């Protein structure tokens, strides 16, 4: 067995991708980070991010509708949960879990990459090693920070 050379892992970088008031609850923003298209969603004040392209036919997931999980134990009884935590592809309606990137219909094989997102105060960003090429950081505001 030959050993495959391992590529050196670069430390994750943290990118400032939006001001929190830029993305309203239930809305999304498409951001471009290190050559990747990433859809950032505001789910009732919590921010979540996945790769923008649907693995089925390539639609922009940032244009999808946020939806809930619908389940039923028997015909006529419907439970809704996890409000707004799934995105429904704007074309064929495939649903992806924003927390894991897994598709609801075929979680083992069909998924999009999900990214860690946090909200940080401007004051902290000014001190830290965050990359914020397009934002002028104000210490009084809050920002959406994506780890890649």
């Amino acid at each position: 067995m030959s050993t495959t050379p391992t590529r050196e892992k670069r430390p994750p970088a943290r990118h400032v991708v939006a001001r929190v008031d830029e993305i309203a609850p239930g809305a999304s923003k498409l951001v471009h980070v290190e050559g990747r298209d990433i859809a950032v969603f505001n789910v009732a004040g919590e921010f979540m991010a996945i790769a923008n392209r649907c693995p089925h036919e390539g639609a922009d997931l940032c244009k999808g509708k946020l939806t809930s999980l619908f389940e039923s134990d028997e015909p006529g009884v419907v439970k809704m949960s996890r409000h707004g935590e799934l995105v429904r592809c704007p074309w064929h309606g495939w649903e992806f879990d924003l927390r894991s990137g897994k598709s609801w219909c075929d979680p083992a094989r069909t998924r999009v990459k999900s990214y860690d997102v946090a909200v940080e105060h401007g004051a902290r960003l000014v001190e830290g090693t965050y990359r914020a090429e397009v934002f002028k950081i104000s210490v009084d505001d809050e920002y959406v920070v994506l780890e890649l």
Partner: protein
Amino acid sequence: METPVLERSSEKSQIQGVVDCDVHPAFSKPDQLLDYLPERWKTHVRDFAVRTANPLLGTLPYPRMTPGNGMRRDSWPPNGGPPASDLAFLQQQLLEECNIDYGILQPLAAGSMAFNQELGAALCAALNDWQIDKFAGPEPRLKASICISQEDAKESVAEIDRRVTDRRFVQIAMPPRTLEPCGRRRYWPIYEAAEHYGLPIGLHTSAFGYRPNTPSGWSSFYLEEHYAASNSLQTVLSSMILEGVFEQFPKLKIVLVEGGFSWLPSLVWRLDREWKRMRDEVPHVKRKPSEYVRENFWYTTQPIEEPENNRHLLDILRWIGTDRLMFSTDYPHWDFDDPRFAFKVPLTPAERSAIFRDNAVELFGLK
């Protein structure tokens, strides 16, 4: 098991210049078609409205899961109006982004299904003028369909006669859920005209129709309606063959639009077998049904069936013949197929070219 290819293809497109056989133009305002009606019918619509077999005017029988009766959620033009009503945005989002050289317009409006058949004929004429005025006139890549009020065969032929010299029309559009099965003689004058002019007839699956969407009535869910689409086209194919339409009009070209195609092999196997046993019942059907199928029918691809194992789809394509399939997007509807990423099966370059372009270029006489 073969692993399905689900990743996006990295190349832009393997085919230069796709032909899209199913594009749905829309009115920019609900009463836009009235502008194309003569005063007599404009007044009539104002006072009596357009009555069709659909229960509620201005709606479809089943609510769709996205806003606006099942449109792609990203297809709303930035300058307002419904999806596919703004030519500039359609040119950008469909023709440019998807590398489409020609798009065949399939208007889905009530003209052919109005209860008042004179009004229906007027609405069809208005639809034909509107397609040219708003789409096929200003954009030569878009080709129009001659909409006809098929229950009135005489008037339908008159409308075909009026339009046929305008080469911007490349097919005749007739809905499949007709008052009687499509093979019946009441429709034969239309087929005679189509054959005479060499114009294909496109039968597009439709939410409009005189009949319920399934043979046992209206189904409960949109999911059922969506798949009932293939039933109506199976009825078209069987009826036209068994009534002897292609004995009478051997050069007639029929395009079954938006009904899928994976059902075709099993249907034709059955038709051939029963014909061998019972052909005395239909002595006018001189050849095996499969022979008419191979000569007189074409199918648009969207919505493409997507089996777990891609190889199964390939088997079906081989059986049907890649010379009978023509690519379509169904823009701007939610189940749109993108020519860059649809058809996740390994096809030879010649087969890809046939499906995505050449078959349609030849059938519609595009070049």
